[in-house]
């Protein structure tokens, strides 16, 4: 397999270098560098959005989720993502209107303009920093532990993580967002094809889908229904997860930026449909990989199950492509998030463009370093760490929606309430406050409370209108 790994790895690196240099050639201004020229078409749009959305946790975390907790994982991810595509259509219309009216350099900057208060931008930036850095770490650590398990005699986890972060930084710093979009498109295609080939192999091993599920029924029937063998997929867990996944394109800057930089609204609509189908088809292909693991490696540790299923049980060329695909998946999500954090910081800066760009580039290096640090020190619960990240950023949704949807300047209490909500969620996550209050998850309490504050603010506010949305 190492021969194939070198051949495919060389092809991948060559494509990445070509894409980076081509992007570099096309960058003529700071706006080109940070916003990719804001004329992205539907194909690149849906590929970069999908590759950014789906990451290491899709191909490493989700099969393990199916193997351990059963078919409720489909509702957790695929149903929520399909509904998210619908939310994307609605949110894109309103965000693009507001962005045209106020100007858009990043969500933090847009919030400052809408609230006419810098604290709205600071709290947004703080929120995404706190919760996106762990998500970046999920990608980096996920691929690090997998590569370490699959190729134990090569590099330790931290060295794989460092190599990936360095590669991301090189092409992000050289080619800006356009290089990231090209790389994402390449990575999205690789991820999709590799997952398809592995899924086909897992089904072929049992002859048919029906045989695969019949075997699972024999070995552990609890996997075939909710809440699963360990009771994880309760109604409350699935509903809270559904809400936070719906909020992902609203709250996560790497996705909201991609909505704004598309050529026009029709392109945004086409992108949303593409993302929805990509999500559902990719999720369909993950199911047999997880079920295969439930039959063949029911008791194995996560890393052993993944290394066996994705590498050792595959033909050498497929295993090599899978390793490349996994690295690509990790990079495509983490690079976008790190770059988006830099973009958000830039949208809060004043001064000339050269200075702002210099600070942005330094900030990207800082955010990458923070992600690397958390990656090296965090635990191996990839999906649950990702869910905390989704839930944390979802807390920002009412504050953002108040700014994007409202005709008037939104009221400041929602900004203050959001800051309190972030603190409470953080305290709950680290165990200072309980995870549930009166039987209900804390994230549901916070989202409900903030939605109420936002609704009351919109009803009671009597302010001059914001600039009319075109």
């Amino acid at each position, binding site marked *: 397999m190492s021969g194939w790994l070198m051949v495919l790895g060389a092809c991948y690196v060559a494509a990445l270098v070509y894409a980076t240099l081509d992007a570099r050639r096309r960058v003529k201004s700071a706006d080109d560098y940070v916003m990719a020229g804001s004329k992205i078409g539907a194909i690149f749009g849906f590929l970069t959005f999908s590759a950014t959305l789906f990451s290491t946790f899709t191909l490493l975390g989700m099969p393990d989720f199916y193997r351990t907790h059963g*078919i*409720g994982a*489909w*509702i957790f991810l*695929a*149903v929520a*993502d*399909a*509904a998210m*595509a*619908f939310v*994307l*259509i*609605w949110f894109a*219309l309103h965000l*693009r209107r507001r962005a*045209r009216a106020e100007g858009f350099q990043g969500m933090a900057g847009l919030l400052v303009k809408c609230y006419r208060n810098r604290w709205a931008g600071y709290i947004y930036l703080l929120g995404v920093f706190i919760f996106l850095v762990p998500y970046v770490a999920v990608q980096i650590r996920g691929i690090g532990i997998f590569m370490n398990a699959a190729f134990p005699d090569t590099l330790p986890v931290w060295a794989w993580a460092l190599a990936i972060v360095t590669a991301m930084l090189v092409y992000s710093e050289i080619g800006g967002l356009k290089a990231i979009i090209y790389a994402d498109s390449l990575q999205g295609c690789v991820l999709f094809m590799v997952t398809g080939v592995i899924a086909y192999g897992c089904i072929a091993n049992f002859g*048919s*889908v*029906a*045989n*695969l*599920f*019949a075997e699972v*029924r024999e070995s552990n*029937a*609890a996997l*075939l*229904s*909710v*809440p699963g063998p360990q009771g994880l997929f309760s*109604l409350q867990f*699935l*509903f809270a997860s*559904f809400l936070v996944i719906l909020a992902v394109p609203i709250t996560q800057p790497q996705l909201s930026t991609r909505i704004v930089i598309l050529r*026009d*609204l*029709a392109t945004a*609509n*086409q992108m*949303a*449909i593409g993302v*929805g*189908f990509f999500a*559902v088809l990719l*999720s*369909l292909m993950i*199911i047999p990989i997880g079920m295969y693991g439930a039959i063949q490696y029911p008791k194995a540790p996560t890393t052993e199950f993944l290394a066996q299923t994705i590498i050792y049980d595959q033909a050498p060329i497929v295993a090599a492509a899978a390793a490349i695909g996994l690295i690509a998946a990790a990079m495509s999500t983490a690079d976008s998030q790190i770059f988006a954090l830099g973009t958000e910081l830039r949208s809060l800066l004043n001064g000339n463009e050269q200075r702002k760009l210099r600070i942005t580039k330094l900030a990207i290096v800082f955010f990458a370093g923070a992600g690397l640090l958390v990656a090296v020190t965090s635990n191996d619960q990839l999906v649950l760490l990702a869910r905390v990240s989704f839930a944390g950023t979802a807390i920002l949704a009412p504050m953002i929606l108040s700014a994007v949807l409202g005709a008037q300047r939104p009221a400041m209490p929602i900004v203050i309430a959001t800051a309190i909500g972030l603190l409470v969620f953080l305290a709950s996550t680290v165990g200072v406050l309980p995870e549930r209050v009166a039987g209900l998850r804390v994230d549901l309490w916070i989202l409900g409370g903030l939605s109420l504050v936002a609704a009351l603010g919109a009803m009671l506010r009597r302010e001059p209108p914001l600039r009319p949305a*075109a």
Partner: protein
Amino acid sequence: MLCVFTFSPWNLAPGRISPFLLGLPYTLWVSILLAFAFLILTIVAASIRSRNSEPEDPDETENRS
């Protein structure tokens, strides 16, 4: 309605695995249909939005007229 059905006891029936459809357990095949229903809804919403919304910039208006 799709959201309500997704989280209703008809879909999230604890421990229920039959009837099977094409070898898939009950909650899985129902949820797969739900996901595709959301996608159809997305296509309908996109086509309505594209038909009803005005061009985003004046250049686009000129190009279209």
